[in-house]
């Protein structure tokens, strides 16, 4: 493949800087959060980072317009994997999320977030209209999200399922929706709530109920969130110091390498540290918006916007969750939470962002 010199010239170093800073802090934090756990999770995470970097380069090496051509195929493939999960997937903690692919296991539900963004971006790019979308024009894109949504909900993985809907909602809001259609979709969403409720495992229902009334079961479902709030709050302004968070080091904090990894950071680095991370995340998100805004074409705008939303909602929902302002739905913190699928997914997302960013001045032939 011939490399256009402009691609190198337009390489988005700022984006790389944000990612590098965030990933480094994330791995450092994981070193502390996973301390004393067999296998030293941070070492594995570093491997995932390198795998992610490789996939990221792969993602921005090919023009996103070329990638978008296969968006539906890839999305369909992801859906097939989601179905396959039910057949051959491994059950952990009462839900079936993992699938073994030639030696390593992955979560197709993470992958489907990316393919959904691509598929929706392609759809809205291919079906551009004057003005705003009505309910009829939204049936097809809604089907694009509904199928994986139901499959993921069935696993059951409430967090990811909601994330898919939120991504869909964000993109629809961005491309423009008529008020009537918006109200209609909202109504459908409300109708889906009782339906979705039945999909949930008992422990997930318990979590949601606990969020509504945290004192319901302080030693059971409420325990997680109470311990998380204690961890974060006890960090104070400057934190207890690296590797010195008592809540995390003594393992009072549950799921501290995955969903509650932010609580570890907040406990050890305090308000100042947390502010730094949030500012970095915000910078990355706003930088993503800027890339979307300055894209060469509409497709690029949609893809960049989609992945930016993926980062934004990931950060917001996770942090809001560990802070006790949203129910514990099990969404990992981008770049921070331990897990290969999540890390690779974020790197692919960043690859797409870079893809759009570095091709912003490449003129159409």
């Amino acid at each position, binding site marked *: 493949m011939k490399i256009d010199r402009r691609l190198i010239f337009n390489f988005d170093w700022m984006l790389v800087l944000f990612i590098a800073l965030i990933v480094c802090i994330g791995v450092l934090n994981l070193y502390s959060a996973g301390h004393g756990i067999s296998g030293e999770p941070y070492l594995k995470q570093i491997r995932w980072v390198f795998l992610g970097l490789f996939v990221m380069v792969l993602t921005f090496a090919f*023009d996103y317009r070329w990638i978008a051509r296969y968006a539906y195929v890839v999305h369909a493939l992801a859906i097939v994997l989601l179905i396959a999960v039910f057949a051959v997937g491994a059950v952990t903690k009462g839900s079936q999320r993992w699938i073994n692919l030639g030696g390593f296991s992955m979560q197709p539900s993470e992958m489907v977030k990316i393919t959904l963004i691509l598929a929706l971006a392609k759809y809205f790019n291919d079906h551009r209209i004057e003005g705003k979308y009505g309910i009829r024009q939204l049936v097809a894109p809604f089907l694009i999200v509904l199928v994986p949504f139901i499959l993921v909900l069935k696993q059951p993985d409430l967090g990811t399922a909601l994330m898919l809907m939120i991504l869909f909602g964000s993109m629809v809001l*961005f491309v423009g929706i008529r008020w009537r259609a918006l109200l209609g979709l909202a109504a459908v969403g409300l109708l889906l709530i009782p339906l979705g409720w039945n999909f949930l495992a008992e422990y997930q229902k318990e979590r949601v109920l606990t969020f509504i009334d945290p004192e319901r079961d302080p030693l059971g479902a409420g325990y997680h969130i109470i311990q998380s709030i204690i961890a974060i709050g006890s960090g104070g302004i400057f934190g207890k110091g690296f590797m010195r968070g008592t809540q995390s080091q*003594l393992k009072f904090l549950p799921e501290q390498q995955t969903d509650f990894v932010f609580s570890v950071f907040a406990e050890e680095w305090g308000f100042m540290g947390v502010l730094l991370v949030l500012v970095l995340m915000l910078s990355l998100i706003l930088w993503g918006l800027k890339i979307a805004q300055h894209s060469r074409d509409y497709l690029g705008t949609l893809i960049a916007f989609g992945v930016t939303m993926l980062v934004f909602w990931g950060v917001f929902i996770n942090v809001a969750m560990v802070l006790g302002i949203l129910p514990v739905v099990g969404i990992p913190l981008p770049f921070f939470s331990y897990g290969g699928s999540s890390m690779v997914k974020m790197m692919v997302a960043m690859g797409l962002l870079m893809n759009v960013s570095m091709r912003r001045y490449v003129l159409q032939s």
Partner: protein
Amino acid sequence: MLEKPDKLVRYDPGMYRERFTFFFWVILVAVCLLVLRLWYLQIIKGEDLLKRSENNRIRIREVKAMRGIIMDSRGVVLVENRPSFDVVIFPEDVKDLKGLVEKLEALYQKVNLTFPMDYDTILENRRPFTPLRVDRNVSREKLALIETHSLELPGVGIDVMPVREYYYGEIMAHVIGYIGEVSRDDLERDKAYKSGDLIGKFGLEKALDSFIRGKAGGEQVEVNVIGKKVKTLGRVEPSQGYRVVLSLDAQVQKAAWTALEGKAGAVVALDPRDGSILALVSRPGFDPNLFNRGISTDLWEKLSSNPLHPMENRAIAGQYPPGSTYKLIVAAAALEEGIITPETAFNCPGHFEMGTRTFRCWRKQGHGRVSLHRAIVESCDVYFYNVGKLLGVDPLAQYAQAFGFGTRTGVALVGERRGLIPTREWKLTRFGVPWQPGETISLSIGQGYNTVTPLQLANAYAAAANNGEYFTPRIVKRVETDDGEIIEEYRPEKKAVLPVSQENIQLLKKALWGVVNEAGGTGGQARVAGRDVAGKTGTAQVIGMADGDDGSSYPYEYRDHALFVSFAPRDNPEIVVAVVVEHAGHGGSVAAPVARKVLEAYFAGKPKQ
């Protein structure tokens, strides 16, 4: 590079500015929301939540105090503490309980031991965050076995507890007692106890528990989520219980125990000058070391179903007819009441007629004409039948009570009994039948309803030996700190003075000396070379036997009790020894040698007068 032209409109990013602005504000508001919440939690509520995180990780744990040691009057250590090791399982650290139990079983099997708990029992008994004791009080070998394999046994640990080491085991079991885990009743009775404490359950361990138990310390430890100690943050040392110094003499006690070898009975030795108990033995005994960590049901069953009742402290709770040892009291009463003089003589033809009944003297052929001195020396029954008849039951009871019979001596031990001194009134209320004159005749040689404890007997003779003045028997001299600072001192406590004149007391003492030292005396076997021993034999019938029968043909429980009470030296008595040997025959032949051995042990190494 590839591309087809845009379908509808030429691309102009500017037309989406409004939408970007909208999302920009959504994002900004969302992040501000998070920052506000963080501000609230970390800065406003930071202090509170820091405290809560400290509460999470810091636990105050009790550090058990060592119980105080117990020593005899010469400073010989009788009881100390030693560590006891338990194998415990921390349920939260065990992933595969079944596999772990199998591993433990295999490990025990390898050294030909059986792991005491099976999987189901463990499953049933485990409680979250509470270490489960699966094998208590393990040997050093087992300890080493577990520790060398600790890496293969995750979740298995060793817990140390201080327990008692009773150096004198059975010999002092009844006096010192034993410890055991606090019961629900104990917890309600005494607020100082905590669940799981080892407390005194019997004997002095129980009576002096408040002194011996000490004060628990505390330890501030950092624990992880499963409650396992990570490190110690601070520690308040427990203070060991106070040291108890007894009046007992381990040497005399041991001699008394050995002298009763193979027999059931009791020995009490005390110092008549101040009431200090030198020895208090009850046989058969039991090993108090077995009670340390809770006795097994099997062993308990065995102990409690033993017909000889090894748990009973016969010295204070055994109630025996005093037999001829009672003649001292009968004689004292008669002399004081003026019924006889030392010269009053009665003829002993070997039997005594009272109405239709015949009462025999132990000596079939009789003693002939005897006065008081010879009557005591030879223990003539007929003489005392005559005296008793003249004296009557109630005056005798009065004197018996004056000698301390019929009431508890007040020794600081749990479980002391009263014995019984019958009176006319007592019989009427108890049985609704008036007193029969014949019963007084039996009473005058210590048979019938009256019963005494060995301790009462010893104290009554101590009264005579000490010229009338006697004390509440005392077994604890003092309670002190490790540095010897006295916490509580138990001084000799004068109880009463006998209503007997010095003249009469000296007379009686002389007669008691004669029992051991004069020709024809029944207590010759109590003689100790170079010491002036005085005493009185007694043979207490359990049932009436035919003439001249030594009882060996009767079943064990119908044979006579052998008694002997003595003091020495005659002129300035330092020690009184009362011996009761159950169902063993004659006092002179069985009990007197026991007393001799106790006296020998006491006088061993003491300069002769």
